[in-house]
């Protein structure tokens, strides 16, 4: 009951912030709406029992990337960039297309999982909520999985981080799009 209520409140905030993101022009407000969406999805992860993912989402995204994004937005200043977004009537086709896609997806998902309309045996087991002891997901279990079964992927991700570090340092020093006049 409490969990369902929390879910619906978080989902409502996510939907409101998503709708706001589509229509806003203010970059700072957009970054703050993104922060709210990320916090709410961290709350959703807490509801599913994935505490470690939720905490790392908050630390990495909200603490790292969003601060970087806000720093860049403040670095830009207020009137320092020229340019315009597309006018609103030119955005209408993609708005309608994406809206139709969203409606189709939602109808498909509801039918597929809840009403068993398509009667797919492989997917219908996902329809019922698991009991709490079945969903073992504490950081201990996650760490055991990472360092036993998925250790190669873990090393690969670490190597990717190193490569990205080097690439970002190189790009910030040497990337030139055009010759200075």
């Amino acid at each position, binding site marked *: 009951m409490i969990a369902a209520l929390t879910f619906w409140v978080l989902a409502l905030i996510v939907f409101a912030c998503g709708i706001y993101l589509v229509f806003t022009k203010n970059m700072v407000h957009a970054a703050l709406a993104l922060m709210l969406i990320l916090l709410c999805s961290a709350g959703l992860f807490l509801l599913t029992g994935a505490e470690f993912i939720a905490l790392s989402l908050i630390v*990495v995204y909200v603490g790292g990337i969003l601060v970087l994004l806000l720093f860049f937005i403040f670095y830009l200043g207020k009137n320092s960039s020229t340019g315009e977004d597309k006018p609103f009537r030119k955005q209408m086709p993609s708005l309608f297309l994406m809206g139709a896609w969203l409606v189709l997806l939602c109808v498909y998902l509801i039918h597929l999982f809840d009403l068993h309309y398509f009667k797919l045996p492989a997917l219908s087991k996902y329809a019922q909520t698991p009991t709490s002891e079945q969903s073992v997901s504490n950081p201990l279990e996650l760490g055991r999985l990472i360092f036993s079964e998925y250790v190669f992927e873990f090393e690969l991700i670490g190597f990717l981080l190193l490569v990205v570090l080097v690439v970002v340092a190189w790009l910030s020093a040497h990337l030139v799009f055009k010759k200075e006049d």
Partner: protein
Amino acid sequence: MYDIALSHYLIIGAFLFIIGSLLVLTRRNGIFILIGLELMINAALINFVAFSHFDTAKKGGEVAALFIVVLAVCASVVGLVILMKVYKQFHTIYVDEVRQVKE
């Protein structure tokens, strides 16, 4: 209404993905394009965690979600650096204004 099924999470994921792709499609501001990319990655994250929660046998989805967080960090950091260099050399962050990208 009271028990939350998998499709609830998947619908939130679908909504976030569509909002993200709308931002990428309609906006010409580089910051909004980056925000849209992050929303799409977050939608994938929600799907992974939800499937991992409702799958009673294996927990690989959460490990994949952890890796996705790292990949999202890499993507957005590289995107921000490129955007910053574009701003320094073209004095705009609107990607339509950037005409010639040549040596």
